[in-house]
């Protein structure tokens, strides 16, 4: 069965989007991403170390022809910085896709919603394909969709927390109303969390720490790939309704005395 993840006119086989942070080195980053099967990878924009510039570059390990590079605005605490970061990222020549995150507080890393809306408005107008990281708030999701964002990305739980989907009911409400892909971004801890998001009908899952922070990141990347695939298939297959009492699987007729 052909099932593509469509995002802003492009088609992807994988519904898992992975971050590239927190790995031991670029070689491990590359191996984990290969094991995850991801086709879209997030990156951050930072200063070059001018006193030691000869260090290897992430893009030496991640061929932009093979992967869709999704620059983020991590570390930005206001709309202006986020917009500036996106403009710099676009100049790098990897496309117009951006993961917009405007952080409101460094302890929770929850998004500053009004600032996210302000930045999204500017970025959409400038032709960016905007994927905003948001709290699991259906109203915010709707507003960002109305502004022209290509997807909405509610968090499952705080970034890096590994708590899994804290409020599945809100995600369900977002899913019911959204006409753009809903991607659960942040807070996933293990493969069943990823599967849960997909079973609910999310279009994709974005994660970094759950893979990079695992004892064996390569194996966890593979587990996440399978979790996302299993969850997606279960969603498409249509699960049975939950019932309080048993229903026998073996026929009741033909029982012998």
């Amino acid at each position, binding site marked *: 069965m052909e099932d593509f993840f469509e995002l802003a006119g492009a088609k992807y086989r994988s519904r898992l989007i992975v971050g*590239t942070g927190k790995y031991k080195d670029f070689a491990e980053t590359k191996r984990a991403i290969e094991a995850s099967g991801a086709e879209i990878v997030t990156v951050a924009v*930072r*200063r*070059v170390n001018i006193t030691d*510039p000869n260090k290897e570059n992430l893009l030496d390990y991640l061929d932009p022809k093979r992967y869709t*590079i999704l620059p983020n605005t991590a570390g930005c605490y206001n709309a202006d910085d986020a917009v500036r970061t996106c403009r710099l990222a676009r100049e790098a020549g990897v496309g117009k896709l951006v993961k917009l995150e405007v952080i409101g507080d460094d302890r929770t890393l929850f998004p500053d919603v009004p600032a996210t809306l302000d930045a999204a408005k500017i970025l959409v107008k400038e032709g960016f394909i905007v994927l905003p990281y948001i709290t699991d708030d259906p109203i915010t999701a709707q507003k960002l969709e109305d502004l022209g964002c290509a997807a909405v990305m509610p968090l499952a739980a705080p970034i890096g927390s590994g708590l899994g989907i804290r409020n599945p009911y809100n995600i369900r409400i977002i899913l019911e109303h959204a006409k753009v892909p809903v991607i659960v971004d942040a807070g996933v801890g293990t493969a069943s969390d990823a599967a849960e998001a997909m079973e609910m009908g999310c279009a994709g899952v974005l994660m970094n720490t759950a893979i990079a922070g695992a004892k064996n990141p390569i194996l966890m990347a593979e587990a996440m790939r399978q979790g996302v695939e299993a969850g997606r298939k279960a969603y498409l297959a249509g699960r049975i309704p939950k019932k309080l009492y048993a229903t026998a699987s073996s026929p009741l007729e033909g029982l012998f005395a």
Partner: protein
Amino acid sequence: MRFLIFMRLKINGEERDVADGVSLTGLLESLQIRPGRVVVERNKEIVPRDSFGATLLADGDVLEIVHFVGGG
């Protein structure tokens, strides 16, 4: 008698003295930075990559030289 004139730039938050009249391409070369992997902002304005050679830096310029790093 010819004096070498230097200009002072602020590059990624650090003050650096470079030869007067150097282009952005020349500066990146002296810093051993591959131009194809970076984006440069000069006084808050992005410099298109194909203008690096034609961009002559001036005393007091503030440069941000950025690239992609691992992130989530």
